[in-house]
């Protein structure tokens, strides 16, 4: 089906990623600055002001406890937001047609957008990490698990953003999932507390929240403490990535929302 050589495929992939990076850096006031301000406020208010009165959480200073969760929250939100807004805008302005008339295979389109989302999510994750160093000392417990968890989580939410953008028919549709699904799941995903504090019932409910596994896997990589087994976290993320990749590729093959 694809008559493009490996070099040509790589060029096409690189083109999409570069275009995506160019987009979010061009509008850095909308994309890079807000999470920096929000996270600084979280560090000051929750970490310094309130955190100093909370004392310890999971055997750690409260500030140290929330940092991995806040980094992960930034990565999740921004990976998702980048892909959903960029791909939907392309659909809305119809410049998705530039890609549809070209020989780029669907898997390269998907990979390009996911990597574009990861570029923004991970850049902001890095900025927030550097920012957190002004408030606490971070020592890395397991670099491999930390990096793998954050990369895979970013990929997973970029995929989620892509599917959302394909299904969306109006701008309202791209804010429904972040507002009503992602934000509650992230806040209830153990960013600010250990689920050990919860009664048994709510602890059980929390275990059904996939973001809990991602936050805890990442926290394990940095701090060495986690409410769940970090390898179970990685396994879950991989399963979700596989499922969402299959769904996204099927939607692209059918031209869902992009071809008549």
């Amino acid at each position, binding site marked *: 089906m694809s008559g493009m050589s490996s070099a040509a495929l790589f060029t096409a992939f690189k083109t999409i990623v570069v*275009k995506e990076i160019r987009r979010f850096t061009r509008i850095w006031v909308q994309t890079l600055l807000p999470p920096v301000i929000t996270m600084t406020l979280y560090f000051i208010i929750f970490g310094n002001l309130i955190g100093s009165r909370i004392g310890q959480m999971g055997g750690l200073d409260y500030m140290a406890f929330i940092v991995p969760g806040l980094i992960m929250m930034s990565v999740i939100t921004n990976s998702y937001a980048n892909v959903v807004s960029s791909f939907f805008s392309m659909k809305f302005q119809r*410049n998705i*047609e530039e890609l549809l008339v*070209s*020989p780029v295979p669907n898997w390269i389109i998907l990979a390009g957008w996911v990597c574009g989302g990861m570029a923004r999510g991970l850049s902001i994750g890095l900025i927030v990490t550097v920012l957190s160093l002004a408030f606490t000392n971070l020592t890395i417990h397991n670099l491999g698990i930390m990096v793998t968890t954050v990369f895979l989580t970013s990929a997973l939410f970029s995929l989620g953003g892509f599917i959302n953008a394909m299904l969306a028919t109006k701008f309202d549709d791209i804010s429904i999932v972040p507002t009503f699904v992602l934000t509650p799941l992230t806040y209830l995903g153990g960013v600010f507390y250990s689920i050990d504090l919860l009664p048994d019932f709510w602890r059980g409910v929390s275990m059904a929240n996939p973001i809990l596994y991602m936050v805890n896997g990442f926290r394990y990589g940095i701090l060495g403490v986690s409410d769940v087994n970090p390898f179970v976290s990685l396994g879950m993320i991989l399963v979700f990535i596989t499922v969402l990749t299959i769904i996204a590729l099927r939607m692209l093959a059918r031209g869902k929302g992009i071809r*008549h």
Partner: protein
Amino acid sequence: MTNALEIEGLTKTYGSGFQALKGIDLNVKQGDFFALLGPNGAGKSTTLGIVSSLVNKTAGKVRVFGYDIDTHLSDAKVNLGVVPQEFNFGQFEKVFDIVTTQAGYYGIPLKEASVSAEKYLRKLGLWDKRNTPARMLSGGMKRRLMIARALVHEPGLLILDEPTAGVDIELRRSMWAFLEEMNREGTTIILTTHYLEEAEALCRNIAIIDHGRIVRHTSKRELLQQLSIETFVLDTDTALDVVPVLHGFEVRLDDEGSLEVDVEKGQGLNGVFIQLEKLGIKVLSMRTKANRLEELFIRMIEENAEETRRAGEGVA
């Protein structure tokens, strides 16, 4: 020689149940300058949308330079450049980036893409605007940008959907000259247009589509020969106030005081000149009235509508 485009039994039924194409057959030879004409909603854009992969077909075959879009889609796309009817580029992107990004989608590395982008942006008079965001361009410049973008990977077949819509006459003429040059250099061109003068000036072969069916598919020359009456415009030495009577001919004055004479096929022009000579009217120059194709087009569409109506009555 393989045809640039072959379409067989192409049908398209949209989700709403509307049947936009009812079995289209079309062949466009390599090197041709081809017009696909038809009224609004006839199926032109749907046909071109299917060829360029923007619309999913319901049934039928499409081959671009012999590559079947069902089995060799990627190869078919490499040979195809598409200029859509509506502006569909990133409004905030710079002109040069839009063109080189498109080349990147075809797997052309940036260095090569930059050379090709410069070539076409220069040819289309957009090189000075290469660092301008697309939204800052005029309507005509935006159209030329879409042409440069469609050509950056050097396709053998260029499809243009209403390329000169909303473009002023001077720019339209320069775009015609550019397209004629591309065609001379070997690019096969298919265009849809509402300006039938454009099709008459540029195209060698024409298909007329109406209600999802091809109602005529022939050469422009053959099509024009079907005109039973041709109108000639005669410029005279003095402005005429009264329409002269020429026996055997329908005569009228146009807005500028020139004579318009309808001449039936086989009638010849000698009778016109002899009678004008007798009336003391001197003819300075003569030309055929433009839009002959328009006249024919309207007639064919009306005939097709009539046939469709009769067929409907027959079924009822």
